[in-house]
Every structure is written in structure tokens, then in C-alpha cells.
């Protein structure tokens, strides 16, 4: 059952306020995923503070470094059900978890951070992982 929109609103805003596009419908996800070129970060947001409470600030810290992906977006698990299901359809071999973070390069999934790799870690730890991925794929693009 979806959570109260009032409860979820600040959790959505924690990402939208830093420029993460919110994908509310399956059509939104399709449209966003249609563009293949460049790098794209897709966040599966969620309510539970056990991990999401560190994921969102970790994403913010990583994006504040200024060297982030070309595009960022999020879907909200347990809330925007069709959008989340469609998003997970782009990495069907990976068991669903939320929060989780997928990183695409030219439309191909090249990195995935599942929930259990976020749990119990700090926002700085999450940011460090993401920044390393951003740097790696920027370096590959520059070398190419």
C-alpha cells in the first residue's frame, strides 16, 4: 500500500531540489530512458530510513562534486508503482531493492548499487562510491 503523500513529499523533494527529475509514470520512465547517449543516474527512492536516509544525502553530496552524470532521475518505490516497475524493467536480471541506484552509459547499465550496499553506511561513503563511478566513466569517455 502506498504511503501517505504527505509523508513522502519531503523525501521526494530531497532529490528534486538538487535537480533530480522525478518520473511519476511508466511513460515518464520510457521517455527518459529513450535517450541513450551519455551518462544517466536513475535512483529508486524509498521511504525506509534504514538505507534511504543515507542514500539521498549521499546522492546530493556526489552530485555537488560537479562531475556527475549527464542526466539524473528517480522513481519512488512503494509509491509510484508503475513507474518503479518500468524502471526495474531496464535491469531485469537484478533483484528489486530500494533504495538502489543504477548508472547507465550510452543506455547500458554499467553500475548498480543495491540497498544492502547502502545500509549502515554513511552518506559520505555512498557519495564516495558514486563519485568513483562518475570519475571512471568520465575518464573512459575522455580516453575514447
Amino acid at each position, binding site marked *: 500500500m502506498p504511503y501517505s503523500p504527505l509523508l513522502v513529499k*519531503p*523525501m521526494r523533494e*530531497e532529490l528534486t531540489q538538487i535537480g533530480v527529475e522525478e518520473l511519476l509514470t511508466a511513460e515518464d520512465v520510457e521517455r527518459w530512458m529513450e535517450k541513450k547517449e551519455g551518462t544517466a543516474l536513475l535512483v529508486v527512492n524509498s*521511504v*525506509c*530510513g*534504514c*538505507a*534511504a*536516509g543515507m542514500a*539521498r544525502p549521499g546522492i546530493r553530496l556526489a552530485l555537488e562534486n560537479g562531475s556527475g552524470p549527464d542526466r539524473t532521475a528517480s522513481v519512488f518505490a512503494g509509491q509510484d508503482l508503475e513507474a518503479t516497475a518500468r524502471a526495474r524493467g531496464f535491469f531485469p*536480471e*537484478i*533483484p*528489486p*531493492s530500494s533504495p538502489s541506484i543504477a548508472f547507465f552509459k550510452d543506455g547500458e547499465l554499467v553500475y*548498480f548499487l*543495491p*540497498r*544492502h*550496499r*547502502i*545500509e*549502515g*553506511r554513511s552518506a559520505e561513503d555512498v557519495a564516495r562510491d558514486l563519485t568513483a563511478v562518475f570519475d571512471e566513466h568520465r575518464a573512459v569517455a575522455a580516453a575514447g
Partner: protein
Amino acid sequence: MGTFHTGKSELHGITVVVDTAGPEVYVGRCDDMDDERVILLDADVHRDGEGGRSKGDYLAAAARHGVWCRHRRLVLPRHRVTSVRRLGEL
């Protein structure tokens, strides 16, 4: 910002590996645990050798991307449990 949970074990909400003295190993989100039982949500179970994979093989794959939910809720008697570890620390 997140939700808060009171009266639960310190591993509440954490994805854990529950190993047993027998062939079974479980992976799931810990709901609660005490001296009597471990309660897992959205859990999977693997039996040593199942599908040609040892417990170690299975856990290596689980540590990478997680597990598929095959049981919404499992209650494991504590006397069968030999260890409870965070999957993220494997």
C-alpha cells in the same frame, strides 16, 4: 530523512545472511531477532549444492546484487541459527 522504528533489534531493516548448521542459508531483510527466533522479510533460501552452487557461491552472487524475494516472511528458530551477518559486509 527517513522513517523510524522503535522496539526492534539493531539489525531491523538491514539485509542479513542467516547461516545454519544444516544445508540452508537464508538472506533477507531482518525484521526482528531475539533469543527465540530471527524474523526475515522478502527473503530467499539456498540449500548447499542446490543448482550446483555451494553456500559460498550463492552468497557471492547475493553480495553482488541481492536476492529475489521468494518468501515474504520467514520465522527461523534461533537454535538452528549459527550466525547472522550483514550481507553488505560480505
